[in-house]
């Protein structure tokens, strides 16, 4: 088990090195910084971006928007997902809404949001709409897949509804919730940045990308992309860590 995980890491590392070499080779083939700058140019742009005074404001603004969007989506998902998992009528009532939201192209929502909201709020709204259906579906699925034997047991032992919720349903949905959180943060983060690209708030990763793109600073666009990927990887790692800690009762 341990050996195979070391081997897999080595494989991943080799692929990354291979991709970086491929990137370098392509950028030499194009021989134009305006089309495809190489890894070295990108790293120097990355360093210069991180050194700029508004770097933290941009990163912080995007993080804050993502966080607010996530928090709103999470609260709504709990409020709707739990009753929808318990009661099939409530599930049927919300299903069309969730399906519609999930299948509407993000760009269409952004275009409407640009009309309805301020530039600062658009990415939050987009993040919310991307994450909400994923979280809700996972929570209600977790509730539905809770072993009915445990609910019977609780009823026989006259356990209160509140404790059935906190001691049986909640631990049962945790694995589903974490998988939902992980997927929704991945999608949500990207949507928030797309929202920023189009709504152009003063600060934000997306706004900076859009600025760099308009001046044809391709290495800066790629550098911001690398930052976005790194932040997303940190999120993924954090979710995994919390997940591991909270389901320690599992084998």
């Amino acid at each position, binding site marked *: 088990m341990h050996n195979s995980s070391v081997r897999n890491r080595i494989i991943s590392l080799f692929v990354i090195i291979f991709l970086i070499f491929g990137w370098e080779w392509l950028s030499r083939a194009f021989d134009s910084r305006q089309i495809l700058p190489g890894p070295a140019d990108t790293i120097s742009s990355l360093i210069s971006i991180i050194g700029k005074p508004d770097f933290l404001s941009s990163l912080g603004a995007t993080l804050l928007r993502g966080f607010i969007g996530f928090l709103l989506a999470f609260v709504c998902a709990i409020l709707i997902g739990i009753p929808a998992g318990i009661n099939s009528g409530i599930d049927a009532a919300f299903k069309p809404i969730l399906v519609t939201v999930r299948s509407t192209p993000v760009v269409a929502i952004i275009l409407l949001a640009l009309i309805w909201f301020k530039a600062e709020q658009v990415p939050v709204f987009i993040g919310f709409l991307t994450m909400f259906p994923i979280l809700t579906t996972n929570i209600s699925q977790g509730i539905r897949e809770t072993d009915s034997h445990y609910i019977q047991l609780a009823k*026989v032992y006259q356990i209160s509804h509140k404790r059935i919720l906190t001691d049986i349903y909640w631990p049962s949905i945790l694995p589903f919730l974490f998988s939902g959180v992980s997927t929704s943060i991945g999608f949500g983060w990207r949507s928030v940045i797309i929202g920023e690209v189009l709504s152009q708030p003063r600060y934000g990763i997306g706004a900076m990308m859009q600025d760099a793109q308009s001046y044809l600073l391709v290495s800066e666009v790629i550098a911001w992309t690398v930052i976005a990927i790194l932040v997303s990887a940190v999120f993924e790692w954090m979710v995994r860590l919390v997940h591991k800690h909270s389901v320690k009762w*599992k084998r």
Partner: protein
Amino acid sequence: MSLKLENITKFYGDRLILDRFSLEFKPGSVTCLFGPSGCGKTTLLNLIGGVTAPDSGTISGFAAEMISFIFQETRLLPWKTVLGNVIFPLIDKLPEKQATEIARKFISMVGLENEAGLFPHQLSGGMKQRVSIARAFAYPGSLILMDEAFQNLDNTLKYNILDSFLKIWEVDRRTVVFVTHDIDEAIKLGQEIIFLNNSPLQVIQSLSISTVYPDRVKATAKEIYHQ
């Protein structure tokens, strides 16, 4: 209050399990429902415990009772430790300190005092069964329902637990209804033994253990089930 099932009919899909079935239980005594696998004993117990509802007929006297139920499957919450599982039904009903004391007492009774902090996936099948027994005995139910509660235990342990159970029962005289297909277990524990047979479930014979010898119970079982 008398505990009664009257004219109960119950289907599982198209299969008729109980057809206008009636039975009365003596409060404060240990009644054994004895019969072959699949004859509907578990259904009967689930009806008494309110886990399933009858299609028709009336069940009286049981609803007012606090019920301890040992299910055939252990139904331990995987995210709670041994102590957490035993204490689970006691919280809200007793002060925390008292609940913990009672839980620990019954965990010791089933010989798992050293495993109180373990999670179910760290226990063997028999140990899990013992935790579910401790949980049911610790709960202050006036009615205890047991569905093949001792089937996964080795004999020495089983008889130790049965002895402890009888000792506790002598003190509080709770009403016990238990299902088994183990005749020795029925003799050891049961005061009333009700022999059942299937398709649909019916009472073949009812014996009171205080008036007969164990051999007679065994002979009756042999006669009914040709075992």
